[in-house]
């Protein structure tokens, strides 16, 4: 969705800086899982606003439907039953792009401008520049981007960047009936989270906390979790997400190293040729040293 009404902070495969003059406020979406009732209104709102229609799935014994994100389902509710403190808990998490401050997808993307990060924190895919390599899928620490089987382009939640650009909240936020999803400046959302966490703690959830993982520089989708010490309980939310070492090496150290190696090979050849000269075997009788008269340097 190439919408240029938001300022760009970073652009995939573009090493030179983006325009820096304007500094809009960082935004965030706050998802309070303790208030979520799993109604999936956010899924429907997302599909409606973005004009997406996932195939009608079938029941697999749990409420998850669709069972996974796809190019046609940018957010899905994940339901998990766990036993905590001796009671059964039904943990429901709205899964989707976390809009990392340090996005692994953008780091991995080889196509200039296929992935951009706006200054407000939204990470957006511009499908017209996407080449379908799937590097973003490997780069993402949250397993979010999905390649479309029809057009081989990557899709994910764009935090309704078109709505946000017009000063509106994302569709999922607007539709949430319980206020489990809130939207505002990141600072404000942290404050809201604090009051919620205090409340949860007073009601016996000692480990309640905010999920804003610093391994990816913090995220622009944050969760309030009753068990912030065990995010894995929430259908595999990673405890300490970070861009993988393999991706960092591939997109980091390997580049200068490879440049050095390839340049060394080329330069060595060139200077070897102009100093030693060609290796000729121009005589039938072999052993024949070509003598070149030299003017001795004094």
């Amino acid at each position, binding site marked *: 969705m190439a919408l240029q009404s938001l300022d760009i902070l970073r652009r995939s495969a573009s090493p030179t800086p983006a325009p820096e003059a304007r500094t809009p406020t960082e935004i965030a979406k706050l998802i309070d899982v303790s208030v979520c009732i799993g109604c999936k209104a956010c899924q429907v709102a997302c599909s409606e606003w973005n004009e997406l229609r996932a195939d009608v799935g079938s029941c697999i014994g749990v409420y998850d439907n669709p069972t996974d994100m796809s190019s046609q389902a940018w957010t899905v509710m994940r339901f998990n039953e766990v036993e905590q403190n001796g009671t059964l808990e039904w943990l429901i998490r709205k899964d989707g792009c976390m809009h990392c401050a340090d996005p692994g997808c953008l780091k991995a993307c080889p196509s200039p401008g296929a992935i951009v990060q706006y200054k407000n924190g939204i990470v957006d895919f511009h499908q017209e520049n996407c080449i379908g390599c*799937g590097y973003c899928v490997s780069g993402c620490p949250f397993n979010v981007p999905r390649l479309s089987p029809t057009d081989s382009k990557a899709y994910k939640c764009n935090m309704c960047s078109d709505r946000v650009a017009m000063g509106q909240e994302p569709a999922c936020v607007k539709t949430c009936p319980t206020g489990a999803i809130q939207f505002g400046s990141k600072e404000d959302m942290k404050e809201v989270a604090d009051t919620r966490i205090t409340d949860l703690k007073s009601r016996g959830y000692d480990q309640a906390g905010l999920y804003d993982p610093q391994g990816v520089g913090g995220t622009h989708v944050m969760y309030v979790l009753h068990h912030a010490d065990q995010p894995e309980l929430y259908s595999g939310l990673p405890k300490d997400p970070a861009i993988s070492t393999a991706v960092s090496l591939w997109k980091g150290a390997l580049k200068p190293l490879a440049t050095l190696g390839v340049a060394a090979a080329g330069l060595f050849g060139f200077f070897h040729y102009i100093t030693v000269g060609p290796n000729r075997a121009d005589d039938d009788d072999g052993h024949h040293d070509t003598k070149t008269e030299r003017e001795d340097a004094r």
Partner: protein
Amino acid sequence: MSKEKLIQRYNAAERINHWIVAICFVLLAISGLAFFYPAFFWLTGVFGTPQLARIVHPFVGVVMFLAFARQFFRYAHHNLINREDVRWMMSVREVMKGNEVGDIGRYNGGQKGMFWLMVLCMILLLGSGFIAWRPYFATLFPIPVIRIALLVHAASALALIAGIIVHVYAALWVQGTIRAMVEGVVTHAWAKKHHPRWYRQMTGDTSAAD
């Protein structure tokens, strides 16, 4: 040079085989470097569009691997490293000055080393390329495996590119070598100087003994 004496080094089938691999390599290097270095992304334009470059790259890779496999079976037995080759490798500085070292057969230590480097790179490239190949095969593998495959693919591709630069330079430097892979022949003088043992095998001439 009206009646220079020639020895056939590569027959037509071998030359066609070599140049199929070489053309594939160039196409793969162009598109691969474009995916690796943002500054070279424009090279995808060689294929029409970046999307086409991404689609074509793995198919060309398979062709290159198959053609290279044919070469492997042609030349592997010529590339077993022996004591003479180790001696060659130890005295590579002398060789670089243009002074041949040792009683070299069909291939010298450097060529053999390059052969095995290429074999290693080709195996790594095929394996990792298969794992990372979207949309067909990547979905069969867990994401952490694909991440390693992408790193291995890029690293081995760049090792191969550096290796090929050396390979091409060596062919340019040792004059008369290109002809072996273009016309298929080398001169007696070339063979006697650079591959004396192979020269004796080919001609029965024993005067080129070390």
